[in-house]
Structure formats: structure tokens, C-alpha cells
């Protein structure tokens, strides 16, 4: 009997470097999060709820859904994340909900990885490579945006005053990690952040 299949995180090799950051900026890789992309014409979704959450209709927003998040990606497109559900189970659950209304769902769990960015200087670090208005009064908790960070396309979620999630294509994860570490360098030592 073979042993359980091991999972490998694309950013495993970066974790030590993340750990060395202190205070002003924190970077961490969220472990394996299942994700599925949902497609359905708005007209057809009506009062459809995903894990108790209505599909966000306001662009650039996200809402908590079960153990994960339900993120607006387009007028007929959303992303559901769930750390606690197996990828294939998540797709099946959503197919069951969406097919009746002419929608669809696809498992994209490994398509992107999720980074956590936090700390008082987190917005500063993002502002070095992100052109959207990150002012705390504008990009508030519950906001999300699909934009570019450095040269990587990302889905950026505001979780809290100075807490963010960054979803990025797995093949770009290494690039984005190096970029974030480089952009954080001047904040690396709390003594130098003033």
C-alpha cells in the first residue's frame, strides 16, 4: 500500500524568507485552498445562495462564504474558495447548484495560490506595484480587485485594515514572491520603516 500522496506548495521554498520579515510587513502563503470558478448569467441566479451567501453583484467585492470567500470576477463570473473542501467535491457541489440555472463550475484549485500580506506597511508595499487606489477609505475590507501587481495579474482582497489576500497564477507565484520580498526590503527592519 503506497503512502498518502503528498501535496507540494509552489512557495514552499520561500517560506523561510517570509518568516524573516518582521513587523512592518508580513508575507505568508495560505496553504492549499480549494477554488472553483462559477459562471452563471445574473438573470438566472435570482436568489441563488452559495453556502448561504448570495452571489456578490457589486463589481470588485467579495463576501465570506462557508469556510472561504466568494469573489466577484465578472458580471457572470465568481470565484469560491474553501480551505476545507476537497477540490473535486467543491466543483461537484457547485455544478449541482449551477447546472439547473444554465451555469457551470470548474475546479481551479491549483490554478492560483493565495498569499497573505499584512502589517502597517502592507499598503505601501502594494502601492509600489499596484495602480489602483489603495487608500484605507477606498479599498476597504470586503473590496476585491483584479489588477496587476508588478508584472503579475492578481486578485487582490482587502480582508482588514492592514490585511490582504493576493491570489496569483501558480506559475507566477515565485515571481510575485520575489517581487514582494524585494518591495518589502526597505521595511524589513522595523528600525528603518520610519
Amino acid at each position, binding site marked *: 500500500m*503506497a*503512502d*498518502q*500522496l*503528498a*501535496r*507540494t*506548495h*509552489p512557495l514552499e*521554498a520561500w517560506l523561510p524568507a517570509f518568516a524573516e520579515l518582521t513587523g512592518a510587513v508580513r508575507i505568508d502563503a495560505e496553504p*492549499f485552498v480549494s477554488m472553483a*470558478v462559477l*459562471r452563471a448569467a445574473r438573470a438566472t441566479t435570482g436568489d441563488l445562495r452559495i453556502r448561504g451567501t448570495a452571489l456578490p453583484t457589486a463589481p470588485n467585492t467579495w463576501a465570506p462564504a462557508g469556510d472561504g470567500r466568494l469573489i466577484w470576477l465578472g458580471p457572470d463570473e465568481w470565484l469560491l474558495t474553501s480551505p476545507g473542501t476537497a*477540490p*473535486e467535491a467543491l466543483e461537484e457541489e457547485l455544478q449541482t447548484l449551477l447546472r439547473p440555472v*444554465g*451555469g*457551470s463550475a*470548474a*475546479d*481551479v*484549485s*491549483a*490554478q*492560483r495560490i493565495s498569499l497573505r500580506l499584512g502589517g502597517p506597511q502592507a499598503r*505601501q508595499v502594494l*502601492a*509600489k*506595484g*499596484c*495602480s*489602483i*487606489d*489603495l*487608500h484605507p477609505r*477606498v479599498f476597504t475590507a470586503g473590496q476585491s480587485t483584479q489588477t496587476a501587481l*508588478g*508584472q*503579475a495579474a492578481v486578485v487582490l482582497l482587502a480582508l482588514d485594515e492592514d490585511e490582504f489576500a493576493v491570489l496569483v*497564477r*501558480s*506559475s*507566477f507565484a*515565485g*515571481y510575485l514572491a*520575489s*517581487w514582494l520580498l*524585494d*518591495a518589502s*526590503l*526597505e521595511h*524589513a527592519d522595523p528600525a*528603518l520603516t520610519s
Partner: protein
Amino acid sequence: MTSTFRTPEGGRVDRSTTVEFTFDGQTFPGHPGDTLASALLASGRHAIASSVKLGRPRGIAAAWAEDPSGLVQIEEPFPEPMLLASTVELYDGLVAHGLPGQGRLADVPDSARYDAMHVHVDVLVVGAGPAGLAAALTAARAGARVALVDEHSEAGGSLLSGTDRLDGAPAAGWVAAAVAELAAHPEVLHLQRTTAFGLYDDGFVLALQRRTDHLGGAAPRHEARQRVWRIRARQVVVATGAHERPVVFPDNDRPGIMLAGGARTFLHRYGVRVGSEAVVFTTNDSAYDAALDLHRAGVRVAAVVDARPEGSPLRAEECRAAGIPVRTGSVVAGTSGGDRITAALVAPLADGEVGRADELACDVLLVSGGWNPAVHLFSQARGRLRYDEVLGAFLPGERLDGLAVVGSAAGLLDLAGCLADGRRGASAALTALGIAPAAEVRLPTAPEPVVPAAPLVLWRVPDASGAEGSTSFVDLQRDATVADLARAAGAGLRSMEHVKRFTTIGTAHDQGKTSGVLASGITAELLGVPVQDTGTTTFRPPYTPVAFAALAGRDRGRLFDPERVTALHDWHVAAGAVFEDVGQWKRPRYYPRAGEDMAAAVLRECAAARSGVGILDGSTLGKIDVQGPDAAVLLDRMYTNLISSLKVGSVRYGVMCGVDGMVIDDGTVLRLAEDRFLLLTTTGGAAKVLDWLEEWVQTEWPELRVHLASVTEQWSTFPVVGPRSRDVVGAVFPDVDVSNEAFPFMTWRDTTLDGVPVRLARISFSGELAFEVYVNAWYAVAVWERLVEAGAPQGITPYGTETMHVLRAEKGYPIIGQDTDGTVTPHDLGMAWAVSKKKPDFVGKRSFARVENQNPLRKQLVGLLPVDRQTVLPEGSQVVDFLADGRLPPPPVPMLGHVTSSYRSAELARPFALALVKGGRARIGDTVHVPVGGTLVPVEVTSSVLVDPEGARRDG
């Protein structure tokens, strides 16, 4: 060297600290707060450069960016070419020398860091002089999001250069209070040492912040040396001040000749007397301040030479009281001296005629010809400029949405007026934004402005020396003179753009900050037309020069362009793979063993795949999930062949063309369900194909019920290839009957491995028995290692893209983008079988019917076998007709086509190639020539399929 010209007190330098720097090999002292220019002047050094064309000595001519001549080369701490001594902040250990025309680049890479920062504001104020500070305070007090950027080391602008008083105290006090108040506003970003160098659409302003330059060698390495601020402002208030303008006269370029306002700045801001004996030459009142201030500082002022017939009675009275002679209706008609001016030739000017001159000894000549508002940003916003006859200057000539020009940048020259105008500009911006201004913003009271005597617009003093203006310099940096302008006019040139190019005036480092308007004025005189008609040449960004590296920012070295890798990258690295760049991807090209070169490694990898088993990381292949009731309809329209007839559980190869009928991509299609497909695209085509499909679905066929999603990174893909692949796959996935009967070619099966879903597909890109393994990339390493482990007995061999290419080429499978170049149809590739005759239409079909597509001489994909069985034809080689005498005729030699792929074949035991050849299929069996180096290599034209043409091996 001692600072004999440093005043005993005053100025904003830190006299408690002395720093040392080296200029032209000589050591000088200076203070923090000095610029290189002020420190040199404090030591009596004026001459610092020699001119580009004539090699004439040139000195420091102004106190900031408008200086056209004080150019230096920095050597330490790091070489930087062509900076103005007047803008280089002094630091200990600075090593520089005067510039002989051209700057010198370092021959070692720059290790400094650079970055960028985006910021969004309601109001951006450019310039922290009186108008800018008033504007910033007005906007800040209203609670707006404000950015205030200023190019100097500290705020204040002209207030730090003079003796102005506000609220009855030195103006510096008000500046300090204003800066402190701004710092207390949470929504205000205040940046000094920050130059707004470009203004673009929708309030987008780029500003360069010099963050650590002034620290010299002490600059922290981990901080960006310079930062480009990308400011998106809803309203922009331009308070960039004005540049003083000289008057052109013979020998006006000698060191010691400088702008009067500059001399005043050196005195008040840096505590430096620019000389011991001054002559002041002016056409307006402002230079009188310089004369009086320098006089009070102990400089002997030989005379104020005022070109105006009546001069300025009021200011003249002050001079007389101070014992400074004033000569009205007079001009400086020439100078004498060498590396430093020794005398000014002063003569009366009447009716444009210069009278007899007499010499006034001096070591500095301070000149003022009036003021040019710094309208660069306004002009960059394509604002129209209007010429003001009274000021002799170009002013903003229209209102622009979202942009207000205030203070002396708008032509106002009195302090109270500038303060009020700054407040006005900001209030207007707030109103436009619907932000209520704070209750009346009180401005400090400035002394009642004395109404100045009208200025005289004088561009140049006629050259009475007989030199015809050949030493009357208009652009000191380009050594361009009045004589050059006269020649341009004489040559028939009328447009300032032509004149600028003919004389090179305004094209130097300062981009004509002082010379531009002079050239327009003098040219207008020469042509006898109004200055408004000659106009200016266009102001182009950047306002001041910006280092390349600052604009490159963080996109350097490994961050220059993203490096995309698969989930197995670390495994490949550990296995010693040599990588190939495919788009942004890093793909293993081959896995050399000790002592192997690429040829040896590839022969080994190929042999393994053909006779045993090999494994490839194919995860970079693009993958698109297509779902919906109309999925098959869409795919029938996009692929040249029929997809709708594909059975669930089966796989089909498909070709995509552009509307022009040329192949753009190819790949396999797996039908997962009646209404669900998985598309595979080429690695390079992944994004392109998804965008292509989305474009058609969204813009042409919105009625189709179909959804597309990229799953490229979701599914890791490993082809397990070779006659022994069945054993390996069977061993790792015992639940799957891998027999040919149960699992035929071009079908797929789902299974699980320790509960993890895995998809297997009988797809072959090599002609051999092969299974493609698809798994969620989380498990890529584990599954790959299982396969490698299980394949050990069969000697499973990881192979890279090179071997993949050889294997597919031996079978005549084209690589889109290598064997095609955007001019190749499926028919040209011999894939008529992949072009549906049944479908009424698909993208590209109509183009196949065009005349050129019927041409029998179209290039077709064929195989080539070098007759000598030795030569590996270089890819890209051209194919020519067989030449009986074995020699090339003189050019032009007709070409039949070119070699698209070429390899050594272990299987064929000889090199072979694929080529696109005119009428190629009709030439099969012929011998043609391929020029390689000096020789003609005979090659036989063959079918593109060289290995297993009957396809006997695919089932093992």
C-alpha cells in the same frame, strides 16, 4: 582651500559641520545644505566646464535647474554623467569634475536600487514656493487628499532666496509653520527633492524623488536611491515658478557671468558671495534686489546697468543711497577676461545703436533679462501658450480642465499676488471636486508691493565688435550664437522647429529653459515678425533629465520579466536539467548526465522513448475548460475540423486558423461530457487562444451558452512515452485496464491514486505508445515521483523539449510557430485531413478559396534528408534548386523555402530536417541544395513523416 566667499553668517547651510569634496582633483570644504555649485563659489571657483563645440570655459550661471552651463561629471560615490553643479547636493567624499561636453557612463553596473510608488490624490500641488504652499494649505484644510511635491531639498522656493518678510517676520518662519501644518494633516503627502517631470492624460503626473543621493556614500543600500511617483490627481495645481532669463551680448559666456536672481539665491540660501566686485545688467527691477543685497553683504557693486532709458527711478534712489552707481539707457556690450570675467564693456544704447563703451572692472556680472514662467507642465498638457508683450514671455493661453497654473508660473511676480493666486487655484480645484473649502484661509500679510517700473523686453545687445554675434551665445551648452540664428534665417528657415534643428538651440541638457524664448525673440527680430508668430518649440517631457534606471525601477535583473515555472521546477533543477525559455516559461530542454553534451543527452533520451520509456513535463501546455450546451457548436466554428462528432471519452487533434486562414494554434481536444471539453493548446498559444475564444464568444456569438476557463496551472501533465509506457502506467494505476482493447488510442479514462483523481489519455506526440497523465498540480511532484519510481525497472528516462521536438519531427508533427510563421495553412502542412469538408463554415475557411491559396507553388511542409547522412542542416537554412555545377550563381538566387526543424535522429541513424518548400510535395524524391557555410549540401526531399509512417507503434 578656504571658503573666502562664505558670508560670516546667514544662509541655510549647517555651518557647524564641514564636509570635504574633490573637484578637478582639488579638495574643497563645504557644509551640509550646500550644493556643489555653492560650495565651489564659496571657494571662489566659477569656471567648471568647457563648452562642447568651441571648448570655451564655462562657469556656474544660475542657482538651479535653469543653469545652461554649470555641468559636472560625478565620479564618486558612483559615476553619473552630466549633472548641474547647482542641483547636486553636497556630501562628504563627493568626487566630481567639470564636464568637457560629454558625460561618462560607469563601466560597472549600477548596484543602487530604484522603485516606483503609486498614489491617488484629489489635489496635486507642484512646487512649494509661496503660491504652492498657499495652495497646499488651502486644499489640506478642506480635508482633501493632497500631494505637494517640490524639487528642492526644502520647501520655500523663492522665499528662501531673498529677504521677503511675511506677517512682519522673515518669510522662512511662515514656510516652517506651513510645512509643520501640512505634516500634521493625515491626508497630505509632502515630498521634497521630488521633481514632477511629466504630465499626462487624466491627471497622471510622474515625479522623480531623489531619496538618498544627498547622503552620498552613507546612503542605505536597502533603500531605493530614487523613486518614481506615479501620481493620479483629480486636480493639478502647477506652482512651478519662473526662470530668470539673461540678455544676450558679445562674450556673454565667461565664467563669472550669471543670472542676478541666482547670485541672490547663493547669498541668502547658501551664505555665499558670488564675487567681490559686481556689475549688474538688467532690463527690469528685480535685479536691483540682487545689487542691493550683494552690496549689503560686502560685495562692491561697480554699477547697475539698466537698459531702460529711464531705468527705475524708485530703485535707483535706493542704489544712490547705498552708493551704487546706476547707468540707465545702457547695456553691457561685451566682456573681457579668460577663465573668469575681468571687466564688462558698458555702453549707452539708443535707437538700437550701441554707443562708445567703457570698461568696468568686475569679477562677476549679474544679468537679468526678465522672467520666463515655467510653463512646461502646462505645455505638456497641450495647453496653448500666449506671448505677453509686456513680460516678453510665454504664458498659459487657455484654461485646461483639472489643471490650474498659479503664481509666477502664471506670470505674477509679486509675493502677495502669488500667495493669493495659490489659494485661488486650490479653491477652484476644490470647487471642481465638490469639496467645500475650509472657512476663509488666512494668508500671511506681505509688504505692500512697490509697483515696479515697466520692464524692457531686450533679447540681445547688438554686436558692435564686428564679430556679427558669433560670440553672442544664445545656447551656451550648444555653443549656438546669434550668428547661427542669422544664418538659419538667411538659409530661408521660418519655423522655430527648423531653426532649433539648424542651430541646435534648446536641444541640450537644459532643453532650452533659458535659451528657448531668447531664440524665439531674436528670430522674430531677424525675420521682422511678431514673437507670437514664431512661437516656441514644443516642451517635451521630461522637465529635467531622469536616469534610465529610475524608470526601469524594480523591473531589473531577475524581476525584469516574470519567470513562469511548473510545479516540478525544483525537481528538474535537482535533476540537472538545462532550461529553455519558451515565452515566459522555463522548460527543461534536456537532462545531461556527467560528460554528456546536448547531442549525446538527446540521443539517449530519444532512444529511451523509442525503445523503452520516457517521461516529459508537459504542464506548460495551455489548458482551457469549455462548458455549456453550445460548447461543441463553438468548437466547430473555431477548429478547422469537426469536434461535435467527438464521443465522450475520446480525444481529437484539432487545428485553429485566423480569419486569414493561416494556422495559429493546434492541440488535442478531450470530450469530458456532452457539454464539456478540455482543450489543449501550445505552450506559447495558451493565453492567445483563450483570449481568441473569449473574443468570439463575447463579441460575435453572445447567444452561445458556453463558459471558458483557463486551467493551465490546474492540471499538471506528464506524457509517459514509449513501448514500455504501458507497464509503468499500469503499475502506478492498477485500477485502470491499460490494454489496447480497453483503453484505445485517442481516448481518456479517469482513475484515482490514493483517492486523488487522475486522468489518463492515450495521446501520442511521438508516434510511440504513450499515456498522458493529468493531475491537480498540488500532487504533481508526488505523482511524477511515483511514475519515475515505478518506471525504474524499465529505465524510465525524463526528457526535455529537445527530445520532444526530435520525436515529433520524426513523425512530421509540426510545431506551430517553428514550422509555421503565420503564412502557412493546414493544407500547406499536409493536414487537409484536419480540415472539415462537412462544416458550412469555420473561422478561416473562406480564405482558403482565395487565389493565392490555389497556387501550386505554395510552400508545403516536407522532410529533408542530407545525402551525406552526416550534415545537420542549421535550422533557418534556405533551400535552393539543385545546382548541377555545385556552385551558387550570383545573387539574387531564387529560394524554394527554408529549413524549419533539423535534428540528429537516433531512430534513423542520420540527421533529418523538416522544411517549407515551394510545391514541396510534388518534389518528393527530388534532390535539392541547401547552402551551409560555403558549401552546397545535397538533400533529398521526402515525406514529412520519416518514422513509422503506417503508425504501427502507437499501440505498442
